[in-house]
Protein backbone atom coordinates (compact mmCIF):
# COMPACT_ATOMS: atom_id res chain seq x y z
CA UNK A 1 0.00 0.00 0.00
CA UNK A 2 1.07 3.52 -0.65
CA UNK A 3 3.58 2.73 -3.38
CA UNK A 4 4.30 5.79 -5.44
CA UNK A 5 3.36 4.21 -8.75
CA UNK A 6 0.03 2.78 -7.58
CA UNK A 7 -3.02 4.20 -9.32
CA UNK A 8 -5.83 5.22 -7.10
CA UNK A 9 -9.03 3.58 -8.22
CA UNK A 10 -12.43 5.14 -7.72
CA UNK A 11 -15.15 2.88 -6.39
CA UNK A 12 -18.82 3.76 -6.37
CA UNK A 13 -20.59 2.04 -3.48
CA UNK A 14 -24.37 1.71 -3.46
CA UNK A 15 -26.33 0.63 -0.37
CA UNK A 16 -29.52 1.87 1.22
CA UNK A 17 -28.28 0.98 4.71
CA UNK A 18 -26.28 3.76 6.31
CA UNK A 19 -24.38 1.34 8.53
CA UNK A 20 -23.41 -0.81 5.58
CA UNK A 21 -22.38 2.25 3.61
CA UNK A 22 -20.10 3.30 6.44
CA UNK A 23 -18.64 -0.17 6.63
CA UNK A 24 -17.99 -0.62 2.94
CA UNK A 25 -16.56 2.85 2.68
CA UNK A 26 -14.09 2.17 5.50
CA UNK A 27 -13.18 -1.21 4.06
CA UNK A 28 -12.53 0.29 0.65
CA UNK A 29 -10.56 3.21 2.03
CA UNK A 30 -8.26 0.95 4.02
CA UNK A 31 -7.44 -0.61 0.67
CA UNK A 32 -6.57 2.83 -0.66
CA UNK A 33 -9.56 3.18 -2.91
CA UNK A 34 -11.18 6.52 -3.48
CA UNK A 35 -14.84 6.05 -2.56
CA UNK A 36 -18.16 7.63 -3.40
CA UNK A 37 -21.10 6.15 -1.51
CA UNK A 38 -24.73 6.64 -2.50
CA UNK A 39 -27.93 5.24 -1.06
CA UNK A 40 -29.85 4.18 -4.15
CA UNK A 41 -29.56 2.80 -7.66
CA UNK A 42 -31.06 5.92 -9.16
CA UNK A 43 -28.50 8.11 -7.39
CA UNK A 44 -25.78 5.81 -8.66
CA UNK A 45 -26.99 6.18 -12.23
CA UNK A 46 -27.20 9.92 -11.81
CA UNK A 47 -23.64 9.99 -10.54
CA UNK A 48 -22.51 7.89 -13.47
CA UNK A 49 -24.17 10.32 -15.84
CA UNK A 50 -26.86 7.96 -17.03
CA UNK A 51 -30.41 9.21 -17.28
CA UNK A 52 -32.64 7.58 -14.66
CA UNK A 53 -35.22 5.89 -16.85
CA UNK A 54 -32.45 3.81 -18.30
CA UNK A 55 -32.83 4.93 -21.85
CA UNK A 56 -30.00 3.45 -23.81
CA UNK A 57 -27.50 6.11 -24.68
CA UNK A 58 -28.03 6.76 -28.36
CA UNK A 59 -24.99 8.84 -29.08
CA UNK A 60 -22.09 7.22 -30.92
CA UNK A 61 -19.58 5.67 -28.47
CA UNK A 62 -16.81 8.24 -28.58
CA UNK A 63 -19.10 11.13 -27.81
CA UNK A 64 -20.97 9.11 -25.16
CA UNK A 65 -17.75 8.56 -23.24
CA UNK A 66 -17.02 12.25 -23.03
CA UNK A 67 -20.59 13.27 -22.26
CA UNK A 68 -21.13 10.80 -19.43
CA UNK A 69 -17.87 10.71 -17.66
CA UNK A 70 -16.85 13.82 -15.80
CA UNK A 71 -15.93 11.46 -13.03
CA UNK A 72 -14.21 8.22 -13.73
CA UNK A 73 -15.57 5.25 -11.84
CA UNK A 74 -13.45 2.12 -11.95
CA UNK A 75 -15.73 -0.27 -10.08
CA UNK A 76 -19.27 -0.35 -8.77
CA UNK A 77 -20.15 -2.31 -5.68
CA UNK A 78 -23.81 -2.51 -4.88
CA UNK A 79 -26.18 -4.07 -2.39
CA UNK A 80 -28.73 -6.43 -3.89
CA UNK A 81 -31.80 -5.71 -1.75
CA UNK A 82 -32.72 -2.08 -2.17
CA UNK A 83 -36.13 -0.47 -2.50
CA UNK A 84 -37.23 0.72 -5.95
CA UNK A 85 -34.15 -0.39 -7.84
CA UNK A 86 -32.40 -3.58 -6.76
CA UNK A 87 -28.71 -4.17 -7.24
CA UNK A 88 -29.61 -6.56 -10.02
CA UNK A 89 -31.67 -3.86 -11.81
CA UNK A 90 -28.73 -1.53 -11.46
CA UNK A 91 -26.39 -4.16 -12.85
CA UNK A 92 -28.61 -4.61 -15.89
CA UNK A 93 -28.83 -0.89 -16.56
CA UNK A 94 -25.07 -0.56 -16.36
CA UNK A 95 -24.46 -3.49 -18.67
CA UNK A 96 -26.97 -2.10 -21.16
CA UNK A 97 -25.18 1.21 -21.32
CA UNK A 98 -22.54 1.63 -24.01
CA UNK A 99 -20.48 3.94 -21.89
CA UNK A 100 -20.74 2.05 -18.62
CA UNK A 101 -20.86 -1.62 -19.50
CA UNK A 102 -17.16 -2.21 -19.10
CA UNK A 103 -17.08 -1.05 -15.51
CA UNK A 104 -16.79 -4.09 -13.25
CA UNK A 105 -19.79 -4.56 -10.99
CA UNK A 106 -19.82 -6.41 -7.69
CA UNK A 107 -23.02 -7.37 -5.90
CA UNK A 108 -23.38 -7.75 -2.12
CA UNK A 109 -26.17 -9.52 -0.33
CA UNK A 110 -26.96 -10.68 3.18
CA UNK A 111 -28.80 -13.66 1.75
CA UNK A 112 -27.13 -16.74 0.35
CA UNK A 113 -29.49 -17.60 -2.48
CA UNK A 114 -27.65 -19.64 -5.13
CA UNK A 115 -30.11 -18.82 -7.92
CA UNK A 116 -29.74 -15.13 -7.15
CA UNK A 117 -25.96 -15.37 -7.11
CA UNK A 118 -25.85 -17.29 -10.38
CA UNK A 119 -28.22 -14.92 -12.11
CA UNK A 120 -26.10 -11.92 -11.13
CA UNK A 121 -22.89 -13.57 -12.25
CA UNK A 122 -24.44 -14.73 -15.52
CA UNK A 123 -25.74 -11.26 -16.24
CA UNK A 124 -22.41 -9.57 -15.88
CA UNK A 125 -21.50 -9.20 -12.21
CA UNK A 126 -17.83 -9.84 -11.62
CA UNK A 127 -18.14 -10.96 -8.03
CA UNK A 128 -20.82 -11.64 -5.49
CA UNK A 129 -20.04 -10.96 -1.85
CA UNK A 130 -22.03 -12.24 1.09
CA UNK A 131 -22.58 -9.70 3.81
CA UNK A 132 -21.07 -8.73 6.11
CA UNK A 133 -18.31 -7.97 3.65
CA UNK A 134 -14.82 -8.78 4.88
CA UNK A 135 -11.43 -7.29 4.17
CA UNK A 136 -10.57 -10.49 2.31
CA UNK A 137 -13.47 -9.80 -0.06
CA UNK A 138 -12.26 -6.29 -0.76
CA UNK A 139 -8.80 -7.67 -1.47
CA UNK A 140 -10.32 -9.56 -4.40
CA UNK A 141 -11.35 -6.36 -6.13
CA UNK A 142 -8.00 -5.18 -7.36
CA UNK A 143 -7.55 -7.85 -10.09
CA UNK A 144 -10.85 -6.77 -11.66
CA UNK A 145 -9.68 -3.18 -11.65
CA UNK A 146 -6.30 -4.03 -13.13
CA UNK A 147 -8.03 -6.00 -15.87
CA UNK A 148 -10.18 -3.00 -16.72
CA UNK A 149 -7.22 -0.69 -16.80
CA UNK A 150 -5.62 -2.84 -19.49
CA UNK A 151 -8.86 -2.96 -21.46
CA UNK A 152 -9.21 0.80 -21.39
CA UNK A 153 -6.14 1.04 -23.53
CA UNK A 154 -7.73 -1.01 -26.29
CA UNK A 155 -10.98 -0.95 -28.24
CA UNK A 156 -13.87 -1.29 -25.79
CA UNK A 157 -16.38 -3.22 -27.85
CA UNK A 158 -14.25 -5.97 -29.28
CA UNK A 159 -12.46 -6.72 -26.06
CA UNK A 160 -15.61 -6.85 -23.96
CA UNK A 161 -17.17 -9.39 -26.35
CA UNK A 162 -14.08 -11.57 -26.21
CA UNK A 163 -14.11 -11.46 -22.43
CA UNK A 164 -17.70 -12.68 -22.27
CA UNK A 165 -16.82 -15.70 -24.37
CA UNK A 166 -13.86 -16.76 -22.27
CA UNK A 167 -15.70 -16.39 -19.01
CA UNK A 168 -18.53 -18.76 -19.73
CA UNK A 169 -17.50 -21.29 -17.15
CA UNK A 170 -17.42 -19.57 -13.83
CA UNK A 171 -14.65 -20.51 -11.50
CA UNK A 172 -15.73 -21.92 -8.14
CA UNK A 173 -14.48 -18.74 -6.50
CA UNK A 174 -17.26 -16.72 -8.03
CA UNK A 175 -20.04 -18.74 -6.50
CA UNK A 176 -19.34 -17.18 -3.24
CA UNK A 177 -19.51 -19.46 -0.30
CA UNK A 178 -18.79 -17.84 2.96
CA UNK A 179 -15.26 -18.39 4.05
CA UNK A 180 -14.30 -18.52 7.68
CA UNK A 181 -14.81 -15.11 9.21
CA UNK A 182 -12.57 -14.29 12.18
CA UNK A 183 -14.73 -16.14 14.69
CA UNK A 184 -13.78 -16.65 18.27
CA UNK A 185 -13.38 -20.23 19.34
CA UNK A 186 -14.93 -20.78 22.74
CA UNK A 187 -11.91 -22.20 24.42
CA UNK A 188 -10.56 -21.25 27.78
Amino acid sequence: MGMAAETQFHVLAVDDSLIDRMLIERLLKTSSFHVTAVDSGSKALKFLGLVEDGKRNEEPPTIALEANQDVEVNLIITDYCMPEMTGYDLLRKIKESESLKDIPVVIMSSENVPSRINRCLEDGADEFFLKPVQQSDVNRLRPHLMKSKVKDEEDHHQISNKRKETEESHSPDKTRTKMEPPKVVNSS
Partner: protein
Amino acid sequence: MQNMEVDQMQRQYLDYIKSLFLEGFLDGQFLQLQQLQDENNPDFVVEVVSLFFEDSERLLNDLTFALDQKGIDFKKVDAHVHQLKGSSSSIGAQRVKNCCIAFRNFCEEQNIDECLSCLQQVKQEYCHVKNKLETLIRLEQQIVAAGGSIPTMEFSF
Protein backbone atom coordinates in the same frame (compact mmCIF):
# COMPACT_ATOMS: atom_id res chain seq x y z
CA MET B 1 0.26 4.05 40.14
CA GLN B 2 -0.97 5.25 36.78
CA ASN B 3 0.41 2.23 34.98
CA MET B 4 -1.12 -0.21 37.40
CA GLU B 5 -4.50 1.42 36.91
CA VAL B 6 -4.24 1.21 33.15
CA ASP B 7 -3.15 -2.42 33.37
CA GLN B 8 -6.09 -3.25 35.52
CA MET B 9 -8.51 -1.44 33.24
CA GLN B 10 -7.09 -3.20 30.23
CA ARG B 11 -7.48 -6.58 31.91
CA GLN B 12 -11.00 -5.74 32.92
CA TYR B 13 -11.75 -4.69 29.38
CA LEU B 14 -10.33 -7.90 27.92
CA ASP B 15 -12.27 -10.05 30.37
CA TYR B 16 -15.41 -8.18 29.55
CA ILE B 17 -15.14 -8.36 25.80
CA LYS B 18 -14.19 -12.04 25.98
CA SER B 19 -17.32 -12.73 27.97
CA LEU B 20 -19.43 -11.00 25.36
CA PHE B 21 -18.06 -13.36 22.76
CA LEU B 22 -18.40 -16.44 24.92
CA GLU B 23 -21.98 -15.58 25.74
CA GLY B 24 -22.77 -15.02 22.09
CA PHE B 25 -23.69 -11.37 22.32
CA LEU B 26 -21.03 -10.47 19.79
CA ASP B 27 -19.45 -12.37 16.96
CA GLY B 28 -16.35 -11.96 14.80
CA GLN B 29 -17.89 -9.12 12.83
CA PHE B 30 -17.42 -6.86 15.82
CA LEU B 31 -13.70 -7.54 15.70
CA GLN B 32 -13.75 -6.53 12.07
CA LEU B 33 -15.21 -3.18 13.12
CA GLN B 34 -12.44 -2.69 15.62
CA GLN B 35 -9.85 -3.51 13.01
CA LEU B 36 -11.24 -0.79 10.79
CA GLN B 37 -10.60 1.77 13.51
CA ASP B 38 -7.24 3.52 13.51
CA GLU B 39 -5.59 6.84 14.42
CA ASN B 40 -7.23 8.47 11.41
CA ASN B 41 -10.65 7.07 12.29
CA PRO B 42 -10.49 6.83 16.07
CA ASP B 43 -14.25 6.94 16.60
CA PHE B 44 -15.30 4.50 13.95
CA VAL B 45 -16.66 1.85 16.30
CA VAL B 46 -18.55 4.36 18.42
CA GLU B 47 -20.05 5.93 15.29
CA VAL B 48 -21.22 2.67 13.82
CA VAL B 49 -22.55 1.41 17.14
CA SER B 50 -24.44 4.67 17.72
CA LEU B 51 -25.98 4.36 14.29
CA PHE B 52 -26.98 0.82 15.12
CA PHE B 53 -28.75 2.03 18.26
CA GLU B 54 -30.65 4.71 16.37
CA ASP B 55 -31.54 2.39 13.53
CA SER B 56 -32.68 -0.41 15.81
CA GLU B 57 -34.83 1.77 17.99
CA ARG B 58 -36.56 3.17 14.96
CA LEU B 59 -37.09 -0.29 13.50
CA LEU B 60 -38.40 -1.70 16.77
CA ASN B 61 -40.90 1.14 16.95
CA ASP B 62 -41.95 0.52 13.37
CA LEU B 63 -42.33 -3.19 14.13
CA THR B 64 -44.42 -2.53 17.20
CA PHE B 65 -46.66 -0.26 15.17
CA ALA B 66 -46.94 -2.65 12.25
CA LEU B 67 -47.84 -5.61 14.45
CA ASP B 68 -50.39 -3.55 16.31
CA GLN B 69 -52.52 -3.02 13.24
CA LYS B 70 -55.81 -4.79 12.68
CA GLY B 71 -54.76 -6.00 9.28
CA ILE B 72 -51.07 -6.79 9.64
CA ASP B 73 -48.98 -6.18 6.58
CA PHE B 74 -46.51 -9.05 6.93
CA LYS B 75 -44.48 -7.87 3.98
CA LYS B 76 -43.83 -4.64 5.77
CA VAL B 77 -43.03 -6.44 9.02
CA ASP B 78 -40.63 -8.68 7.15
CA ALA B 79 -38.97 -5.70 5.51
CA HIS B 80 -38.31 -4.11 8.88
CA VAL B 81 -36.95 -7.35 10.33
CA HIS B 82 -34.77 -7.81 7.28
CA GLN B 83 -33.26 -4.38 7.89
CA LEU B 84 -32.68 -5.10 11.55
CA LYS B 85 -31.12 -8.41 10.71
CA GLY B 86 -28.80 -6.66 8.28
CA SER B 87 -27.60 -4.00 10.64
CA SER B 88 -27.18 -6.33 13.60
CA SER B 89 -25.23 -8.68 11.38
CA SER B 90 -23.05 -5.84 10.17
CA ILE B 91 -21.95 -4.87 13.64
CA GLY B 92 -21.70 -8.37 15.03
CA ALA B 93 -24.72 -8.31 17.34
CA GLN B 94 -25.18 -12.05 17.00
CA ARG B 95 -28.12 -12.69 19.30
CA VAL B 96 -30.18 -9.91 17.79
CA LYS B 97 -29.39 -11.23 14.35
CA ASN B 98 -30.43 -14.75 15.30
CA CYS B 99 -33.71 -13.47 16.72
CA CYS B 100 -34.35 -11.74 13.42
CA ILE B 101 -33.78 -14.93 11.48
CA ALA B 102 -36.45 -16.73 13.51
CA PHE B 103 -38.69 -13.70 13.25
CA ARG B 104 -38.56 -13.70 9.46
CA ASN B 105 -39.63 -17.33 9.34
CA PHE B 106 -42.74 -16.51 11.31
CA CYS B 107 -43.43 -13.54 9.07
CA GLU B 108 -43.41 -15.89 6.14
CA GLU B 109 -45.88 -18.14 7.91
CA GLN B 110 -47.90 -15.07 8.85
CA ASN B 111 -48.07 -16.38 12.40
CA ILE B 112 -49.18 -13.41 14.46
CA ASP B 113 -48.63 -14.90 17.89
CA GLU B 114 -45.13 -16.06 17.12
CA CYS B 115 -44.31 -12.75 15.53
CA LEU B 116 -45.40 -10.90 18.63
CA SER B 117 -43.33 -13.24 20.72
CA CYS B 118 -40.34 -12.68 18.46
CA LEU B 119 -40.78 -8.96 18.74
CA GLN B 120 -40.57 -9.22 22.52
CA GLN B 121 -37.50 -11.39 22.26
CA VAL B 122 -35.70 -9.15 19.83
CA LYS B 123 -36.46 -6.11 21.99
CA GLN B 124 -34.93 -7.90 24.95
CA GLU B 125 -31.88 -8.98 23.06
CA TYR B 126 -31.45 -5.49 21.73
CA CYS B 127 -31.59 -4.05 25.25
CA HIS B 128 -29.01 -6.56 26.46
CA VAL B 129 -26.56 -5.88 23.67
CA LYS B 130 -27.07 -2.15 23.95
CA ASN B 131 -26.12 -2.25 27.63
CA LYS B 132 -23.14 -4.46 26.94
CA LEU B 133 -21.85 -2.27 24.14
CA GLU B 134 -22.31 0.89 26.15
CA THR B 135 -20.35 -0.68 29.00
CA LEU B 136 -17.65 -1.83 26.61
CA ILE B 137 -17.31 1.60 25.07
CA ARG B 138 -17.16 3.18 28.49
CA LEU B 139 -14.33 0.84 29.47
CA GLU B 140 -12.49 1.77 26.28
CA GLN B 141 -12.89 5.45 26.94
CA GLN B 142 -11.62 5.05 30.49
CA ILE B 143 -8.48 3.35 29.23
CA VAL B 144 -7.86 6.02 26.64
CA ALA B 145 -8.51 8.79 29.17
CA ALA B 146 -5.94 7.22 31.49
CA GLY B 147 -3.41 7.34 28.68
CA GLY B 148 -3.54 3.67 27.77
CA SER B 149 -4.33 1.91 24.53
CA ILE B 150 -7.23 -0.43 23.92
CA PRO B 151 -5.88 -3.98 23.92
CA THR B 152 -6.78 -6.22 21.00
CA MET B 153 -8.39 -9.48 21.89
CA GLU B 154 -6.35 -12.49 20.96
CA PHE B 155 -8.10 -15.65 19.99
CA SER B 156 -7.11 -18.99 18.61
CA PHE B 157 -8.78 -20.94 15.86
